[in-house]
């Protein structure tokens, strides 16, 4: 019995001639928040659909809770809640009715719908038709629908899509809460590194259907070394001066110098050094790599 809630073994998936997922070996540890990161069209949604058996995967390539998905479809789906792409909601029903309908399908008590509405903060909009909901409200209803069966594994496809900053924070806290207090495993996809970094314990990065990186969030941080970005006048001299002082110049543009970030104390020392030597420092801040640069790095390393 493996410790993985989800395990795919060399998963391949094609739409006709187009390969959407290529030799994908996901390993999502039980109890983790697994950030599934990749640009649009990387194969994230396809993978999630395969994990829900909406798309037929080849035999013996996809295992959920250690069981092959095609031969254990119903047993697996009982333990999984999902939000795929745009939340699937019956627009002519109210938020509450959407949840009650799901309760009917799952054979659970209808009062659960009220709890879920309260959990995602839709109690006041419970009796409003859901096609009148804002995108953020729909998204929250979608999350409530995914949670209503109290599943052990949650598959959330870009759950913060369309949410305002407040909503994003709420979803983030909800995920952390579910994983820590309720021992759920969550696979959450996103195309924003910053979004994943804040919640995930583990990360998988996918691009063009291939897994580029998989590991813990700390392993990712080792990969994506932060940089210190210095905006300064007299850039040529400044760069020369820094290099002479023993700092490694990572990059240099006509306005900025990039050097590897070590600690905030070191950043302060550099600042003092520059000012004492007559340079004017307009800004100095820690910069994290965005997904694009991270991809470049990872692909370079591969």
């Amino acid at each position, binding site marked *: 019995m493996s410790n993985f809630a989800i395990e795919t073994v060399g998963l391949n998936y094609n739409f006709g001639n187009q390969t959407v997922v290529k030799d994908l070996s996901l390993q999502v540890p039980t109890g983790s928040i697994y950030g599934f990161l990749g640009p649009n069209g990387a194969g994230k949604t396809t993978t999630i659909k395969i994990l829900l058996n909406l798309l037929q995967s080849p035999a013996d390539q996809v295992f959920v809770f250690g069981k092959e998905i095609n031969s254990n479809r119903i047993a697996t789906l009982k333990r999984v809640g999902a939000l795929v792409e745009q939340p699937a909601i*019956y627009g002519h029903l109210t938020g509450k009715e959407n949840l009650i309908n799901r309760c009917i399908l799952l054979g659970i008590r209808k009062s659960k719908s009220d709890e879920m509405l309260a959990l995602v903060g839709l109690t006041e909009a419970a009796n409003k038709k859901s096609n009148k909901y804002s995108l953020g409200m729909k998204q929250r209803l979608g999350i409530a629908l995914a949670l209503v069966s109290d599943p052990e594994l949650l598959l959330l496809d870009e759950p913060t899509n369309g949410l305002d900053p407040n909503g994003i924070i709420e979803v983030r806290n909800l995920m952390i809460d579910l994983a820590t207090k309720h021992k759920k495993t969550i696979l959450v996809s996103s195309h924003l590194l910053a979004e994943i970094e804040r919640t995930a314990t583990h990360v998988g990065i996918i691009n063009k259907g291939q897994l580029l990186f998989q590991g813990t969030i700390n392993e990712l941080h080792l990969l994506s070394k932060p940089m210190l970005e210095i905006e300064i006048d007299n850039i040529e001299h400044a760069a020369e001066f820094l290099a002479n002082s023993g700092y490694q110049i990572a990059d240099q543009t006509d306005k900025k110098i990039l050097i590897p970030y070590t600690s905030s104390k070191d950043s302060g020392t550099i600042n003092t050094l520059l000012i004492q030597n007559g340079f004017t420092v307009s800004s100095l801040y820690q910069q994290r790599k965005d997904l694009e640069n991270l991809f470049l790095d990872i692909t370079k390393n591969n």
Partner: protein
Amino acid sequence: MRSLYISLVSEFYKSRKTLAFWAAILLPVIICSLVTFGFYSNSEKLVKMNYPGMLLWVQYIGATLNVMGMLIMPFYVIFMAFSVNNIEHKNDTWKTLFAQPLNKFSIYAAKYLYAILLILICLFLFAALSFSFGHLLQALVPKLSFNQYNPSTFLISSYTKLFLSSLGILSLQFIISLIWADFLKPMGIGFVGTIMGIVTAALKWQYAYLIPYSLPALALQVTRVKKGGDPLDFEIFTREIWTSLIYAAVLFTIGYFIVSKKSIK
């Protein structure tokens, strides 16, 4: 079995606020009311003609039945097959529906059964309303002869035939609506099919019974031929009905095959 029942309850829950559901109730109420009103405003003439009870009933019921069998029934069935599937297409909910821990056959069969159930409710109401409105007419115009004959057997047999003969169309349209999300394809194909059905049935083309769309009209034609005789006389399971049932069974199976292989994109 349990998941079939659950899916069926959910189908009802989802659609109870939609036109598709209410059409099953409104359609018989409106048509029967109109026909009854027509008979009521013509009641003097009818009293003068002094029809025997049976003939009066046959005329009264036939007025509804002919409109139904020819035109409304096929379109109603097409609309039902469309709306049961469209509720998922429109809301993009196929993916969630098939991600529930229910077997695919139950989800599919529940949809199909629900469409059948709506048609059954609709036709039952037609029969029940024809019966009660006929008696209402009798109460309003006591000189009419509705009370001389009990039409229940005639009503039951005719509407049973109409129901069974429409299952072929239902199954065909069900598959079309299942595959295509848009409104025009099922409606367009259904419209052309229905016109073809009416024409071939009217022309009494010898192979008309092979076209599902002509079956309701054909089934009622046979009824009409013998309307002068004892209405109890006609057979329910005629060739048209068997054709319809065979179409229904075969297409239902094909539909399931499509669903089980279908990847939800």
